[in-house]
């Protein structure tokens, strides 16, 4: 908890919820009759509404991207390193919108919400949501906020896919697209990791085919395992070596299977903390949205064709030690943009933090990001 709010923080923020009564047709052909979206905003919208930035969150993110909900909150929002006065996404210049995606578990309509048809939580009956659906729902939020065109849409990882989809689906509604540590589609290896995570959740005896709310329980072990696996793939071998090495918790081996190595303790702690803040059905849904995303598939696998109508200028960034969304995957996006003569800059940042690097304070990353944002005209 902060004793005082740091000067480069957006300070205390309060989420808002908008209720949408107009049904949303989904890619799966199902329809959400009505839904809520929870969001936060930082900075001030200018008179001609030209300084709005949309932040798209990743797998386990939410609308709370920056600042504090109260003086009692231990940590600021998940991207506080990059959002605030004087930070790359400078809130003294930009009006920043960050929302919790549909299917989420932090206040937007999702599996934990009450299904009006049954008066019970949706659970596994919540419709499958795709990246395209998210972007469509975000466009409606933009309408509500009076934002015809974003100065930039920005996202890392799964958030980067949403930013890319914005440029494809709404070419006139954004001027800049910033895609960080992302990919134009998941590889087989990536889908495999997601599948193991889903199996861990679905094979937990307290999962009850997704109806665990009715049994007043959660598939704790399964969700914990899924998160532990995910966490390993977000770090790099080097970062784990420097963070934990082979350090033992009590200085000696015990010839058993309890937690002995520091890395085990860390993973279990991360897993347990995650169970307390995240919903298993949401995790299933988000990983599936990741798996399905492939804008090139509607253009005979040619990403350059999928991007042929984009108008936004792109900044693509990747990190050297990221093996979950490796630089080569970002370079596929860059190549497609160059082939179709779009405006793009690409920076591969040296970092040993693995995929998580996009959340870290890294000087070169910070400088590139800030320099790009400062060029954006408002």
């Amino acid at each position, binding site marked *: 908890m902060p004793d005082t709010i740091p000067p480069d923080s957006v300070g205390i923020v309060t989420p808002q919820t908008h209720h949408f009564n107009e049904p949303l047709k989904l890619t799966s052909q199902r329809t959400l009759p009505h839904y809520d979206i929870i969001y936060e905003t930082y900075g001030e919208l200018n008179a001609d509404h030209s300084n709005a930035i949309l932040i798209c969150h990743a797998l386990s993110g939410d609308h709370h991207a920056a600042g504090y909900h109260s003086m009692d909150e231990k940590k600021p929002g998940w991207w506080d390193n990059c959002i605030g006065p004087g930070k790359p996404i400078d809130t003294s210049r930009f009006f920043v919108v960050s929302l919790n995606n549909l299917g989420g578990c932090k206040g937007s309509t999702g599996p934990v919400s009450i299904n009006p048809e049954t008066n019970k939580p949706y659970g596994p009956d919540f419709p499958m949501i795709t990246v395209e659906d998210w972007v469509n729902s975000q466009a409606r939020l933009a309408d509500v906020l009076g934002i015809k065109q974003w100065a930039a849409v920005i996202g890392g990882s799964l958030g980067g896919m949403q930013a890319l989809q914005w440029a494809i689906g709404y070419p006139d509604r954004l001027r800049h697209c910033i895609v960080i540590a992302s990919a134009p589609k998941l590889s087989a290896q990536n889908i495999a990791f997601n599948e193991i995570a889903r199996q861990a959740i679905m094979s937990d005896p307290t999962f009850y085919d997704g109806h665990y709310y009715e049994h007043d329980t959660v598939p704790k072990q399964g969700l914990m395992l899924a998160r532990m696996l995910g966490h390993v793939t977000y770090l790099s071998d080097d970062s784990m070596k420097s963070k934990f090495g082979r350090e033992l918790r009590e200085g000696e081996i015990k010839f058993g299977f309890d937690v002995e190595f520091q890395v085990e303790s860390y993973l279990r702690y991360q897993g347990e903390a995650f169970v307390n803040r995240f919903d298993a059905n949401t995790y299933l849904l988000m990983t599936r949205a990741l798996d399905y995303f492939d804008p090139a598939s509607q253009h005979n696998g040619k990403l350059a064709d999928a991007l042929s109508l984009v108008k936004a200028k792109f900044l693509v960034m990747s990190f050297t030690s990221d093996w979950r969304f490796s630089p080569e995957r970002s*370079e596929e996006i860059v190549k497609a943009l*160059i082939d179709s003569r779009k*405006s*793009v*800059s*690409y920076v591969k940042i040296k970092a040993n933090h693995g995929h998580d690097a996009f959340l870290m304070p890294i000087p070169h990353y910070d400088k590139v990001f800030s320099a*790009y944002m400062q060029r954006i005209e408002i």
Partner: protein
Amino acid sequence: MTQLRSDLALISEWIQPKSHVLDLGCGDGVLLKHLRDTRQVTGYGLEINETHIENCIASGVNVIHFDLDDLNKGLCDFLHSSFDYVVMTQALQTIRRPDLLLLEMLRVGGQGIVTFPNFGHWTCRVSLGLRGIMPISPSLPDEWYDTENIHLCTIRDFERLCDDLGIEITRRAVVDPDHRTRLLMHIAPNIFGEIAIYQIQKGD
């Protein structure tokens, strides 16, 4: 506008307005920025140095993080004939295989423009021939052990290489670091030219 480096000022005049240009080793993006502002040129710079990349972004120049020495990849990221010009200023001598890169340049671009410091300049000859040490000059400022220039060549070397590779030289300029072409450079460019600038294309 700040003064352009001499070879860059000359190159700009060689490039047709509204062209699509790839600049290999674009540094701070000065050439591309100048071409964008004065000739509506589009394109990208390739660069590996972090500070240069940051400066390109700050000037709004499209820059792509790229290692020119990664010749396993070559410029294979780029489609055949996707640029009107591929430019490489003062970087040829820093590349591990300049010959292969020249061919790649003419694969992805219709025209190539190359500049390099002429190692046949009389000061280099004096330094090496009389004093017996590697030359240091304004265009070759570093000591032999910490220079990036691993493949220095003379004007005659370069033209022989082009001949061997079937590359046609369509234009040549020889200047001093102040962008001046003096009479002696016309008479004996390989002795009096400090910086050589070539426009090349695929031979018949």
